[in-house]
């Protein structure tokens, strides 16, 4: 009963402490209070993790696209979701004048509540306290509850009385209803092996994670859930180029935020369910169980983001064809095979793993051969194409981002960069005025007077930098080489007159010259930052 034990079994220990503290109360009161605590914990958990997920998604997708992603608000941009929520809260709230108000305002609520309800049966850790309630219909409860959010989408699409909303809702619902069939059928394989619908028992039965015993089931379930939660490449409902934002087009500010919460809550739920059903839930060596759970959830979510940043959107007919021609029959075949295996080899010996993976490969190849999604569809071409794309986005993770943390971090421009205005070396200038004559815009103004000895003294050397077009003719025409292009590139000023650059600023020591038209200077210059990857990496 040391500190490690407490950390390792955090949730059961907390549960024991709470129930001990409530020991004096009658049973129903302690039951009620424990339940309320659990509900509040789940609410906070979901909202916090959703905010984390929003940040994580934007950062990781940024890396997949060789960008940095949002990193300004708070450490590493962690407060970005908070800033987003505040922005949404402060937005003007309006209702479309023709909206069916009751339906319109109830829709986000109906959409978001199932996302929370699902977490009642998701086990974070074994033992009491690791799960709110271990229903013996666990996975069926999840399937049933998540269908309710369809109604919310419908209500939003109808209540807004906007054609884009309606089309978006129709698309969403057609998609959700179609993909629900293979989704539920693929769960049956898991249930057959585990011999239970309870989420806790399913995890406990996974001495070998079910992803190995049920590779085909996993694939169908994962793709089906992606479609259920409308994530890319199944995100037809928010195909911006076609139907604005789909069913939530007409929702402003906070109402939109609720839909957003529902979407990410469902993404979190799906990650948690995949973890529980196929990846062995909280089980893993060394680390505390709940940490294993979160690591696996994050892993599943990362795979979703990986798919999102690689694959383009489906077309509507392809979407339906994929559900009904591929996932649905394959899910049925999966049930058939799993049922046989469950009867013949009830304890699932390890060669079954290899057999199942082989069967999956053969089935996928055969099915794509017999039922091409459209004319000319070839698994050899498209499958390899998808694999290549996935490999490419994965490689991007290890590349240097194209964007930099400006202004803390700056890129070194080319050595012959024609940067801001001019740099003047007054000691060498003879006041010959060649630059003035060379300037096609007449923006260099030179005033000289006779010196005490031979030659001229420069009194005024102004450049109207606001009009400069960086042609560099002045630099090229200078016979003594006292004029250079600058290396800086920030042009903004607060006042108009600052755009006329005088002699004192042209000669200031912090103005760095570039090697434009001065090739002899190139050797001392720092090398240009190259964002292109080294050879061999595309």
């Amino acid at each position: 009963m040391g500190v490690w034990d407490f950390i390792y079994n955090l949730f059961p220990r907390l549960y024991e402490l709470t129930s001990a503290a409530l020991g004096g109360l009658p049973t129903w009161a302690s039951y009620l209070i424990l339940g309320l605590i659990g509900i509040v914990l789940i609410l906070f958990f979901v909202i916090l993790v959703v905010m984390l997920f929003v940040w994580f998604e934007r950062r990781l997708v940024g890396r997949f696209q060789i960008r940095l992603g949002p990193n300004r608000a708070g450490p590493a941009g962690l407060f970005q979701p908070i800033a987003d929520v505040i922005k949404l809260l402060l937005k003007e709230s309006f209702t479309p004048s023709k909206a069916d108000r009751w339906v319109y305002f109830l829709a986000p609520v109906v959409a978001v509540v199932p996302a929370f309800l699902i977490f009642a049966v998701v086990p974070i850790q074994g033992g009491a306290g690791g799960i709110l309630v271990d229903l013996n219909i666990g996975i069926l409860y999840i399937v049933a509850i998540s269908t309710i959010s369809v109604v919310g989408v419908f209500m939003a699409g109808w209540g807004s009385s906007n054609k884009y909303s309606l089309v978006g809702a129709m698309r969403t619902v057609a998609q959700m209803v179609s993909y629900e069939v293979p989704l539920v059928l693929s769960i049956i394989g898991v249930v057959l092996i585990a011999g239970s619908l309870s989420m806790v028992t399913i995890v406990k039965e996974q001495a070998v994670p079910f992803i190995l015993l049920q590779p085909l089931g996993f694939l169908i379930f994962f793709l089906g859930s992606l479609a259920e939660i409308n994530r890319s490449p199944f995100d037809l409902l928010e195909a911006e180029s076609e139907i604005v934002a789909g069913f939530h087009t007409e929702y402003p500010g906070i109402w939109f935020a609720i839909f957003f919460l529902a979407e990410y809550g469902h993404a979190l739920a799906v990650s948690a369910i995949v973890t529980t059903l196929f990846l062995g839930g909280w089980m893993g060596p060394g680390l505390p169980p709940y940490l294993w759970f979160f690591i696996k959830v994050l892993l599943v979510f990362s795979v979703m983001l990986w798919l999102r940043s690689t694959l383009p959107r489906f077309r509507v007919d392809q979407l339906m064809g994929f559900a009904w021609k591929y996932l649905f029959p394959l899910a049925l075949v999966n049930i058939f095979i799993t049922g046989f295996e469950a009867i013949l080899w009830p304890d699932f010996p390890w060669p079954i793993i290899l057999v199942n993976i082989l069967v999956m490969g053969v089935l996928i190849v055969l099915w794509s051969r017999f039922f091409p999604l459209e004319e000319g569809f070839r698994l050899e071409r498209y499958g390899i194409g998808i694999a290549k794309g996935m490999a490419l986005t994965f490689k991007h993770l290890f590349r240097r981002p194209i964007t930099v943390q400006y202004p803390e971090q700056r890129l070194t421009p080319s050595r012959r960069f024609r940067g801001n205005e001019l740099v003047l070396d007054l000691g060498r200038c003879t006041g010959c005025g060649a630059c003035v004559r060379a300037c096609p815009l007449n923006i260099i103004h030179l005033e000289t007077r006779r010196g005490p000895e031979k030659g001229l003294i420069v009194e005024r050397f102004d450049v109207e930098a606001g009009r400069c077009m960086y042609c560099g003719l002045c630099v090229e025409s200078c016979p003594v080489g006292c004029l250079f292009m600058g290396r800086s590139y920030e042009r903004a000023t607060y006042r108009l007159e600052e755009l006329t650059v005088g002699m004192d600023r042209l000669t200031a020591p912090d103005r760095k010259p570039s090697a434009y038209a001065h090739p002899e200077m190139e050797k001392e210059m720092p090398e240009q930052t190259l964002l292109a990857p080294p050879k061999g990496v595309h």
Partner: protein
Amino acid sequence: MGVAIAFWVLAAVSVASALAVVITRDIFRAALFLVLCFLTIAGIYITLGADFLAAVQVLIYIGAISVLIIFAIMLTREAQRGSPSNRLRLPALAIGVLLLATLVFAVLVTPWNVVVPLPEAEPTTAGIAARLFDLEGGFVLPFEIVSVLLLAAAIGAIVLARDR
């Protein structure tokens, strides 16, 4: 006690929403009330300890049937102008009352085998599974055949729906 309160609340809501389905003029709202009605009936199943039935009720009646109804409404042109009226109001009322009377009569007349005291309500899932998938006297073979049958139907549908 708690179960009794839950039952009465659910019963009241389900009857009210069922009435609303019939009375509401806006057909889309009527469909939504139907969803609420199905949901409360699932709740009543839970108070009776029939958890499997409750989940299936939500899954099928809300997830499939209501969605189908709403889908049909969305595809209907005239739905925006309220419920399409017709002359079947009185016959429908008569048939409804007749059906209700039959049901009430049947419930009252049937000699129910009432067990006192009530046995503890137990989760039904394990029992259903044991009955269905018991290797002796279960329905394992029909279950397998069903999956083959559905597969055949699906492939048939795909072949029929192909362009060529």
